């Protein structure tokens, strides 16, 4: 590595360079009793360790007046490659949420667990807690490859297990090699080192220019929304055999209001790799982004901008060069849905059952009359299958032995948390919301805390038009960064200011077309006023099998977004 530092590098790049493979001054930060926060540079570095420093924004003004610093706490994102967790892992996360978090578990849109509200002094104990059950948070956030997603339902295909395994291999291969994580969080006592001793053969000492996301999907299901990832891999199966993957590159949903040079973009298909070459292909794509990505302006540093800057052919040529061979032509495939199929099913071959459980906002909690968290804790004590996290913030109790089916159903019923998806509108079942206020520092507006209330009102409209079972995808975020993939919502609501949202329409149902801005700065009345007539028209005029997003395009309500660069047109 050259020692000459480009003076135009962004602040975070300088922090990474000085960090000695992600150590920074985290140890000092943790020892400082005078603040619940970290040293400023360490707030960037702790992301690589899977945690964000946040404040309780509901209390910021009040505490400032009280001459107290903001109520700092940490979100910890625990990786679950492919979304598969054991009962023991579930039990531990449940207990950690109570011991060190805010008493709830968040299941995220990227199949991870999030603990919220962890105080600085409790970070090591929390991380040690899930380390004991073989989970980690390294690379949960930060400028590295994040949790690798994979669609979750093991009963949908015979090759599913194989695909999950490849997801886990990719995750392991792209996990940072620095020993900083172990030193800081697990070993406690640190040997003072001034020289970086680690080696990062894939990332180098400055890691990637920006976050990097990979997802796998097994058609016809796209609940991992692979086109919204830097790399999307579509499993191709023939006669019960996994042949390999179609490779898509350059997806990413974040953008910044007021900066039209930023835009959500879906990944482009560039070819096919055999299954045994998937890890290698991912590594090479990562290294191109490592070398070519923009390290001066973080708003333009995702792979999608690198590709649009150099052009897709140049990017693919470089990939072929680095692989030493060319990708094969893309194989045919078809996606039908990016939603979860709720309820009980049983696999005739194995006799095992599974329950796809709706978890509103992905939030596992107890509240009066609805003790989902307690019920799942009870189930985790005997359930011999897995807890699988879906990309839609829901939960699959997978591989339930026949002797446990009735017991699980009873426990959930008694807790008021029984599978009730069929009583809900399809709109609510498919809804996604990011965390937003009160803890996310990016949020301009509410999302998870507010969407259920908005849905109460929208449900009335939906039911009045006989659309209760029409699977309309609605997604809400508190800012334009895209955590709940709002630009792939048939109805996308993106927060602009407290109580105000931009309304986007026109995505398709399988995660293959972005939506388009329809109205700006709507309050709740505005959202209902704008959506009601369109929903009425859809109910009256839809063609057989026509999705809501497709309808809004066909009838000219919005223009179709063909590619990311057209998003703002």
């Amino acid at each position: 590595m050259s020692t000459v530092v480009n003076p135009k590098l962004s602040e975070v790049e300088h922090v990474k360079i000085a960090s000695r493979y992600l150590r920074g001054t985290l140890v000092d930060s943790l020892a400082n009793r005078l603040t619940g926060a970290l040293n400023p540079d360490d707030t960037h570095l702790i992301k690589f360790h899977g945690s964000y420093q946040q404040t309780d924004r509901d209390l910021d003004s009040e505490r400032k007046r009280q001459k107290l610093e903001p109520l700092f706490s940490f979100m910890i994102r625990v990786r679950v490659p492919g979304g598969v967790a054991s009962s023991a892992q579930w039990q531990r996360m449940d207990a950690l949420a109570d011991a060190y978090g805010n008493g709830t578990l968040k299941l995220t849109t990227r199949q991870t667990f999030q603990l919220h509200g962890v105080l600085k002094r409790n970070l090591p104990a929390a991380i040690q807690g899930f380390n004991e059950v073989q989970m980690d948070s390294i690379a949960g956030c930060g400028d590295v490859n994040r949790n690798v997603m994979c669609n979750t339902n093991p009963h949908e295909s015979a090759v599913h297990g194989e695909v999950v395994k490849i997801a886990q291999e990719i995750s392991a291969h792209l996990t940072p090699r620095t020993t900083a994580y172990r030193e800081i969080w697990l070993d406690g006592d640190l040997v003072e080192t001034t020289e970086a001793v680690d080696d990062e053969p894939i990332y180098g000492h400055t890691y990637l220019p920006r976050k990097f996301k990979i997802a796998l999907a097994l058609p016809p299901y796209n609940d991992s929304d692979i086109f919204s990832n830097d790399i999307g891999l579509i499993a191709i199966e023939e006669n019960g055999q996994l042949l390999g993957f179609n490779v898509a590159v350059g997806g990413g949903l974040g953008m910044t209001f007021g900066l039209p040079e930023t835009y959500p973009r879906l990944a482009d298909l560039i070819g096919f790799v055999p299954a045994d070459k998937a890890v290698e292909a991912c590594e090479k794509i990562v290294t191109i982004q490592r070398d070519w990505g923009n390290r001066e302006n973080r708003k333009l540093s995702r792979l999608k901008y690198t590709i649009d800057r150099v052009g897709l052919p140049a990017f693919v040529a470089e990939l072929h060069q680095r692989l030493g061979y060319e990708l094969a032509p893309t194989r045919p495939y078809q996606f039908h849905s990016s939603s979860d199929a709720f309820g009980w099913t049983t696999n005739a071959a194995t006799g095992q059952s599974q329950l796809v459980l709706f978890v509103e906002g992905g939030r596992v909690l107890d509240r009066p009359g609805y003790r989902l968290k307690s019920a799942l804790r009870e189930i985790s004590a005997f359930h011999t299958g897995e807890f699988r996290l879906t990309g839609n913030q829901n939960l699959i109790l997978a591989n339930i032995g026949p002797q446990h089916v009735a017991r699980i159903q009873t426990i959930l019923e008694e807790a008021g948390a029984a599978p009730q998806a069929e009583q809900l509108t399809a709109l609510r079942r498919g809804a996604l919301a990011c965390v937003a206020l009160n803890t996310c520092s990016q949020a301009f507006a509410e999302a998870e805390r507010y969407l259920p209330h908005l849905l109460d009102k929208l449900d009335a409209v939906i039911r009045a038009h006989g659309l209760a079972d029409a699977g309309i995808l609605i997604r809400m975020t508190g800012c334009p960064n895209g955590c709940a993939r709002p630009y792939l919502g048939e109805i996308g609501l993106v927060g602009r200011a407290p109580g105000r949202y931009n309304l986007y329409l026109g995505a398709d149902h399988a995660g293959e077309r972005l939506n388009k801005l329809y109205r700006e700065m709507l309050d709740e009345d505005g959202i209902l006023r704008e959506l009601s007539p369109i929903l009425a028209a859809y109910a009256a005029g839809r063609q057989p099998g026509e999705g809501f997003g497709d309808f809004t395009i066909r009838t000219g309500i919005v223009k179709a977004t063909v590619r990311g660069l057209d998003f703002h047109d």
Partner: protein
Amino acid sequence: MSLLPILPPSLNEATLQQLTAGLTPQQLVWLSGYFYGQATGGAVGAGDSTATPAAAATSAAPAEKLTILYGSHTGNGKKVAEQAAEAAAARGLQAEVRDMNDYPGRQLAQEQNLLVIVSTHGEGEPPVSAEELHQFLGGPRAPKLPKLKFAVLALGDKSYLHFCQTGKDFDERLAALGATRLLDRVEADVAYKAPATQWVADVLAKLATNPAVTAGPSATAAAVVAEPLPAAQFSAENPWPAKVLESIQLNGRGSDKETHHIELDLTGSGLTYAPGDALAVRPRNHDPLVEEVLRAARLSDTAPVQLGAESLPLAAALASRRELTVLTRDVLERYAALAPHAELHGLLADTSRLQPYLYGRDVADLLLDFPTDQLTAQALTDTLRPLPTRAYSIASSLLAHPDEVHLTVGAVRYQAHGRQKQGVCSSLLADRVAVGDEVRVFVEHNEYFKLPKDPAADIIMVGAGTGIAPFRAFVEERAELGASGRNWLFFGNPHFTTDFLYQAEWQQHLKRGGLARLDVAFSRDQAAKVYVQDRLLERSRDVFGWLENGAQFYVCGDKSRLGHAVQSALAQVVQKEAGLSPEDAAAYVKNLKKQRRYLEDVY
């Protein structure tokens, strides 16, 4: 114009307008600077012998100050502020960039040229970092700013209903306080860069043509000399009615503690104090307690009683002249003479039973426990003690807060003997006075609990709970004086997140050097309880080093719990670090006390 001072008849407004007709704004500004120079130069020339020659010589006066103040959430405001400072430097103008977040509002009075860059959030709200200054400018303590020239760049987003509202507020408030606009306010939308750059260029061009900035008179020469106030004699009998300026609950949500920060106005009182002094407050009993006592005594609220030469209704006497919340032996003795209960006499004869009886009981309890028909309004009044004042260690420095005094008051509330009880004065300050109300106060000087005379001497301060109060005053005072001695604070309370009193202020003092070190002990945040005395022991080497180096040692807080523990911890520190026997270490600490280098304010 009502703002005009009274001028000689020959210089009425019409004449002025005639004389200045046709002048450009720049020329008018120059003239105002000219006359301003005349005025301030003249004042200096008129015989203030203490003025420095440099201040008197207008031509040699230093250039005026340019301060660029920003308040924004995203960092855009900071960027513009830094850009403006660079552009100013390129023109040879020195500018200081300040974040509103740690800019004391009262400093505005010292500013001469001010550029304000501030964003607006949500529905017209200021960003958190600007909240305090925004509130200050709109509040009663905002100073008049006749000498200030300013310009405001408002950052905002046109799609919000209240576009640039905070910028508008700053602009209008500064003008209303008498400051002069260098430029009309500029409101920038999301694409702020171009208008911001233009604004910077325009405002700097304006400053360059403003004679005051390059060769104007030094405003320091014009600093108003405070008139010496008559040394007022305020006392318990004649307290000063101080207006409450601010009342803040310092403990965060979920705390078991309730500590109030009270700011009182001393303007016009002539009251002065030094850090370490106490402020005595004359309380008034809570009306429900007065009613409780009246009921228990079965006496009429209007029954007249005589207090010396004064006659007043019983309820009034009980409310403001007699102690009701606390029982003492002397009260029991006088009451026993009226109500000959055997049990009461028994209590008085047995000290081991008397103390437990007195603890947590008030006058109503006594009257209910031992009722008597012999009680008259006058007899009750004569039996009870006069209501004493309550003294609180002052939590502020007059240098840092001119004409103000701040208190840190722990609200005393407890359930005892079947009724909810509260401290007479702490509950008054916590619950019953609001901003704008008056509290009757006077200063009680504390001769010994004072900062070292030598500003270079180091100090170690140990405080728990409201014992933090005098140390806030100490650190503020030393920061204002620029004292070179190092300040080390030990502070303890139950919980870090809710009970770290004045946390944000300490963090600022640490950043700016007002505090050299800060050690904290939050007793309930971990399985094993940790107190300030434990931290003293952990830091024994440095504590002893400071002491040997002549540091003064202060303790403030609860007498029984803190006072003794700290003294014995310090003896252990000495024993360990000096290798002394326990006896010699104790003697070392005793000697510190004798030299008045170990000072206590315990209660």
